[in-house]
């Protein structure tokens, strides 16, 4: 029978701890036994892995910072170019520039206009 390894004492202990009949208290018991040194090494390894995960995330976040900085620099450069073009445009369309242009020099004074009065 499957309950053959149960003894009276175990049953009494289960009743005391409030467990019901036919409720499993042990699912699996490994035959591998770990000593304290192995435990320590495993814990250290887990901490290291967690640390590495943290570092990876931190580095990943920092890499975004560099990407952001790169894009910001690009935006700044493009804005500078835009401003520069605006200034050039303003200079080229300044009245003094237009007045002295070859087109303006070639213009003639208009004839006296006629008006239609309704």
């Amino acid at each position, binding site marked *: 029978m499957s309950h053959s390894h149960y003894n009276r004492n175990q049953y009494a202990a289960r009743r005391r701890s409030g467990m019901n009949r036919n409720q499993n208290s042990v699912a699996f018991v490994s035959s591998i036994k770990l000593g304290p040194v192995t435990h320590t090494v495993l814990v250290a390894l887990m901490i290291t892995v967690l640390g590495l995960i943290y570092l990876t995330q931190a580095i990943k976040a920092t890499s975004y910072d560099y990407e952001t900085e790169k894009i910001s620099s690009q935006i700044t450069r493009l804005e500078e170019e835009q401003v520069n073009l605006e*200034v050039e445009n303003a200079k080229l369309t300044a009245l003094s520039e237009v007045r002295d242009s070859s087109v303006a020099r070639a213009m003639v004074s208009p004839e006296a206009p006629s*008006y239609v009065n309704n």
Partner: protein
Amino acid sequence: MPTDVLANRRIRILATLSMIVLAIFVVRLFQLQVIDHSKYVALARQEQEKRLIIPAMRGELYVMDDGKPVKAVLNQTVYTMFVDPEIVDEPEKVVKTIRQIVGGNTVKGYEDSVYQEDTRYVVVAKKVSYTQAQLVREKKLKGIGFQAESARVYPEGSLAAQTLGFVDVDGVGQYGIEGMFDKQLKGTDGLLQSVTDVANVPLTIGDKNINIPAKNGKNIALTLDRSVQAYAELALAKGIKKSGADAGSVIVMDPNNGKVMAMANLPTYNPGELNKIQSFAQVNNGVVATPYEPGSVMKTFTLATGIDKGVISPDSTYNNTDYIRVDDRVISNASKGQTGTITMQHALNWSLNTGMVTIAERLGDGSINRTARDTMYHYLYDKFRLGQKTGIEVYGESAGRIISPSETEGNAVRYSNMTFGQGMDLTMVQVAASFSAMINGGTYYSPSVIAGSVSDEGVFTPEAQRETYGGIIKPSTSAKMRDMIVKARTAFYADNDRKGYTVGGKTGTSQTIVDGSYDNGQTVATYLGFGGDTKPKYVIMVQVSGKNKNLAGNYDAMPIFTDISNWIIDYLTLQPKV
């Protein structure tokens, strides 16, 4: 001693020593990590965190062009170019590149500085443009660096220089709009506090990061019309050259809303070349900052007062003898010979002082008594708002002065002189704004140069109309004054104007006070007038002056008015009357 006892003793000593060393470590660590905790945290933060000021862009200034705002003052990033002689490996090539690309911006002795050995930072050129900097960068020369800074750019050169003002080397606005609105134009700097790497790149790690964006300064659009301003400056320069004067000013105003379309002053300067300014006169906005005695143009105000009070009409007559006595003084006409019984219109046409003094006498039932003086003061100061600041949004406005009858100096002689524009100090903007009220039906519009604001996206938001004061004079008085002023101009100068338009004006030639007394050898020429089609559309006031120069309103100021008036009729596309 047995060996094991000795060994135990040594172990105990070693253990004790170890304990002492450990205790020292513990104490030291306690001191470092607990007692001095905040100190070292602060030191670490100082090392790892950077506080960077994000500079706000200074607001730009716009003028109007065909009803739309266009930039008149812009910001541009310029660079200070420097070299690190220790890194420069091709000094001759560096010098050649600097000369070829930024030759006009170099500092004195830049050629030698490239070879200097005792320094690692030498400025070789200033205000290098973005294009120039790019060209130099493309050469990929070692040891050349650039420091960016923002600078004002004035694409229109000296256009409206005194109204715009300038920004000094410390970034502070001076004079004009720059001076008046320095705080609003400056904006608010932002702050970036962050952990940075060795290259000062801000990193998101850290729990004390701050990122407050900069708030750029306000972009201000002025009412000045670019074309009107340019033409006014051109006409003024031509007129001054012709008359041999030293200085002059012009204001062009829309009489129906008080908005200033042009404000020109000569001599002038280019705000982009501050090192070339030689005198204060160049930066002074005489239109708002320099009160003077306007002379006979003020006769229009005396007539308006007389008509509005009902003591005269344009056709009222008086006996002109070319002289009139006021207390112990005899006042004479500059133009003599129009003697006999003449009308007030005739007196205005010939600019006769006696006619104006007569009006003042009629305000007091025959003498320039306290009643007459109080009435004149009430009209000039309270109604026409002369002798006080108009509140125009330009730096350095002067109040001028009209002496009250309650003051000792406000006697009959003073007030008789005031009827023809002497004995009072007024600015051109005051006179132009009051004159606008006189001919627009009687509403005083506080003069303004602010049209509105422009967002960073280029959206224009108009400014609300400044204070208006209705009923300064009766509409009927205003209509009579328009008619009188047109007749005063057409009586002598009808051929100067474009046919089919309503153009009126009055000359003014005022003596200046030299060493405490009026000097006939130094006179200021003024012309004040308006023009339009079915109603007045523009008011122009011109003033021309010069040291030891005898200048006359009709010869030296009026031609400038005529030039601008005939041009602006086309510009505003006014249609002539049939």
